[in-house]
């Protein structure tokens, strides 16, 4: 801490020094904070201004809405595009995919954490290795496989949410399993051992003891997986070509792919609407997110 050689002689200089000390110790922190917030917010402000801009073009949009405010872009978004369909598709696919993938990987993590069996170590390493081959690189093979699947079972083929969901499930194990195995490892073994002694089956130990204990972490991992799936664009873009079957990422990319200037207002309105569910859940779970992230989750 800074020490002052001369005690303050006059009240006025004392007040000045206090202000200086405040500036040196706390004030600059606020300056950094405000600058950082400005950096974080200005693109979001730009999106907001574009969404409210009645002209709806990129060239007429500035950082603050100058040409008046209107909800026309939002109305157009629902009237001219299949935005409602995209929104529902995205929520359905991402919600289901994150829920099921978290469930599948927690099952596997339980086995890896609590049981000892032949091939356990090899299994863990294999998972890590397979995960390093991004699913997207196999897109040609996936395309060919799903061409056959579409012929045989159109219900889970191209342009269906179910097919895309199944495809995402291919990556359900992997990083998530490693993460969750780490969480399970932190729970004391005495808990499930005593339950077993009292006659609980392995399934009861898993569903009644382990799962409730890691529930907050599960929620955070599920949220991250949800965000990752909502933002997935490349595979979905190959997979979904019908207007009504598209997800938000594919559909909104189509909005600005061709006429990037004219549709910008609608695009910005869509961006804001897409952000609403995530921002809400984010603020709700913020407390858990910090601890969950530090334990090693990465945003997809």
């Amino acid at each position, binding site marked *: 801490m800074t020490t002052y050689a001369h005690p303050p002689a006059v009240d006025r200089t004392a007040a000045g020094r206090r202000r200086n000390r405040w500036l040196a110790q706390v004030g600059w922190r606020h300056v950094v904070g405000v600058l950082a917030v400005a950096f974080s917010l200005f693109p979001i402000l730009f999106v907001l201004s574009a969404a409210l801009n009645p002209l709806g073009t990129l060239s007429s949009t500035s950082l603050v809405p100058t040409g008046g405010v209107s909800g026309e872009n939002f109305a157009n978004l629902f009237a001219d595009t299949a935005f409602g369909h995209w929104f529902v598709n995205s929520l359905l696919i991402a919600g289901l995919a994150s829920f099921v993938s978290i469930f599948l990987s927690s099952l596997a993590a339980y086995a890896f954490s609590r049981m000892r069996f032949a091939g356990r170590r090899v299994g863990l390493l294999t998972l890590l290795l397979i995960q390093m081959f991004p699913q997207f690189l*196999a897109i040609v093979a996936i395309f060919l496989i799903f061409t056959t699947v579409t012929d045989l079972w159109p219900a889970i083929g191209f342009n269906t949410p179910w097919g895309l969901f199944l495809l995402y499930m291919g990556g359900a194990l992997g990083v998530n399993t490693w993460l969750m*195995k780490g969480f399970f490892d932190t729970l004391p073994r005495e808990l499930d051992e005593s339950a077993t002694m009292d006659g609980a089956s392995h399934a009861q130990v898993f569903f009644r003891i382990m799962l409730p204990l890691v529930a907050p972490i599960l929620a955070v991992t599920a949220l991250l997986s949800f965000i990752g799936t909502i933002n997935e664009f490349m595979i979905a873009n190959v997979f979904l070509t019908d207007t009504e079957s598209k997800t938000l*990422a594919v559909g909104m990319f189509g909005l600005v792919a061709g006429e990037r200037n004219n549709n910008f207002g609608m695009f910005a309105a869509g961006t804001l609407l897409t952000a609403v569910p995530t921002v809400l859940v984010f603020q709700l779970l913020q407390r858990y997110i910090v601890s969950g992230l530090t334990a090693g989750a990465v945003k997809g």
Partner: protein
Amino acid sequence: MSTKLSGPGSTRTSGRGPVGPGLPRTARTARHHAPVTATGLVVKVILLGLVAGIALWAAFPLVEAEKWVGLALLAATTAGLFYLYLTPRHIPAKYLVPGTLFLIAFQVFPVLYTASTAFTNFGDGHRGSKDDAIVAIQSSSVKQVPGSTEYALSVATAGDPATGALVFLVTDPATGAVSAGDADGLRRLDAADVTVGSGGKVTAADGYTVLNFGQASARSQEITDLVVPTAGGALRSSGLSRAYEGRAIRAYDAGCDCVTDSESSKRWTADAATGSFVAADGERLAQGWQVNVGLENFSRVLTDPNISGPFFGTLLWNFAFAIGSTGFTFGLGMAIALALHSPRMRGTNLYRVLLILPYAMPSFAMLLVWRDMFNTDFGLINNLFGLGVDWFGEAWSARVAVLLVQLWLGYPYMFLVATGALQAIPKELTEATSVDGASPWQSFRAVTLPLLLVALSPLLIASFAYNFNNINAIWLTTEGGPFPADNPRNGATDLLITYTYRLAFGAQGAEFGMAAAVSIFIFAIVATVSAISFRNTRKQEEVYS
């Protein structure tokens, strides 16, 4: 350590007694002989019934298409599942199998398939077998010759008029018999199923939707391209209401294993090494077939100067991008976390909520927004600062722009985790250094930073591995550009993965085999880097414990 903060701290509150009240307590038996509860039994029956139902549903199309291997696989999987969940043995497998099934079907199998195509010339012009190539060559050379039979034509589809597969309904002028033809060939239709109008045109047929003139002209290009192979040549359309059966000009001769053009009498001989028909003057027919080329794709990446030069340039930038994205976001996130981390600081919660907003915004949309903010003519960046920079037009400015976008998207995350890790560092440590007379900078270097790095290095590695293949970050902003004038395949901001994507699906024609070879290189690089870094962290020991 912050990694251990996770579960227990927040979960202890929700802890219940080790055994729920509903559990039977009478039998103190070992795990393997735990009593079967009613709920467990019901759930098991329902789930297995569901499996059987799905298997049955999936079986019918397989039987119909006579895919016996697929059917056997389906039956074996279903039987295996029933065995696994009805036997009291193999407990770990009960937990591992559900996820593993998906993993094998949608990850391992495609990856192996991809790996196997890396050794072939699979791509445009080399898609199918040699027989497919011969059929394609012969039918595409069909020409109308004097004496060709003319048929009355109706264009129909088996499904939706706008998207369904096209079918030619043709009436033989001599016999009046009606046939349906598609790319697989011509088959006779029962006279009772069709209605033939005046002039021999089919106006309705069971199972088909006859297109009206408007619908047909909307798909006229597809109609022109459709060739129906027949015994004597092939059937093609001539306008929307006539079709002719022409003769193939080019014919395959098995004796010399070559294709001969009957008009120019030019000859193309099959070359099994490259999978194409090659003439004496070196001309190749566009339609070839898929052959095994061994390690040629791999050696081309390393030795062909047209590929290897850009490839290593891309590799270098790929590393710079991944390290830069991780490093800058971590640096900025940590700096802000340090600045806000002070007991005398007020309003940190408000700062935090606002700071992490970029993290909660949909990243695909924000990437596109940033792309437009960098727009030369109407972009916000140029407008705000009064610049006229063509950001994505120059290699270096495009790279800076891409990294800046990554910084914006990524630093809130690093800020969050650094804040969490800072809170886990005991105050006594930093206080002790200041008592010993260390400056804030010294205490940061000697105490805080090392502890932060230990806690966050697994995250940094994961972030590196993620950004190494961060296709969205490039594809939604620069699309890999700007491209040098002489090489439209490999741009300044291309990552290996976007480069691969362009190889596989680009405008220059698909080269799936080559793309697969590059994929394997990417996999090897990421796996090596991650293995080395994981070895250097303590994470490994924790995970194996």
